[in-house]
């Protein structure tokens, strides 16, 4: 179970880094946060799970979405 979650996270990380659309990257990143929150819950760390869900998937996504919307969405380099 843990390995499956980790492999999903790894795949999402690859997508985040390689995707041409930064907004999709951000969504993948918040999915990573949610999956790791689930992972932390399974690993008997409910406090960390709540924090990761609230801070990682919540606050940091808002900040990323703000930055991308205020500038440009495509990674053209």
């Amino acid at each position, binding site marked *: 179970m*843990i*390995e499956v979650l*980790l*492999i999903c*996270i*790894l795949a999402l*990380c*690859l997508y*985040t*880094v390689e995707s041409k659309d*930064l907004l999709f*990257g951000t969504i993948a*990143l918040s999915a*990573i*946060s949610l999956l*790791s929150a689930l*992972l*932390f819950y399974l*690993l*008997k*760390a*409910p*406090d*960390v799970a709540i*924090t*990761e869900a609230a*801070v*990682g998937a919540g*606050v*940091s996504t808002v*900040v*990323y979405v*703000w*930055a*991308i919307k*205020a*500038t*440009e969405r495509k*990674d*053209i*380099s």
Partner: protein
Amino acid sequence: MIDRIIVGLIFLVGLWGLIGKRNLIKKVFGLSIINAAVVILFIMEGGKAGSSAPILEPGVRDIVDPVPQALMLTAIVIGVCVTALALAMAYRLYKATGSFDIDEVRERLDDGHR
């Protein structure tokens, strides 16, 4: 063992984003990922040492080590703060130069006055 290797790979993917990608936002993505990898590693290993969450309800025995969890709470929050500040700077750089490409940003700033 295999789970730790996957976490190590996540770390390396983050490093690739941080250094190999030229887009500023991608670099911040990479930073978030390497931070998350260390957090996962710490919690995962700490979680193997017991069988129940560290909340002392009556009858709870054999808890996992709570110290890594408390440390990682701090690390997660600090990671997000770094992300927010880095993005605010990237935003200002974009406003100043119109680009997210690190080399282009440097060139355009060099052309103007420093």
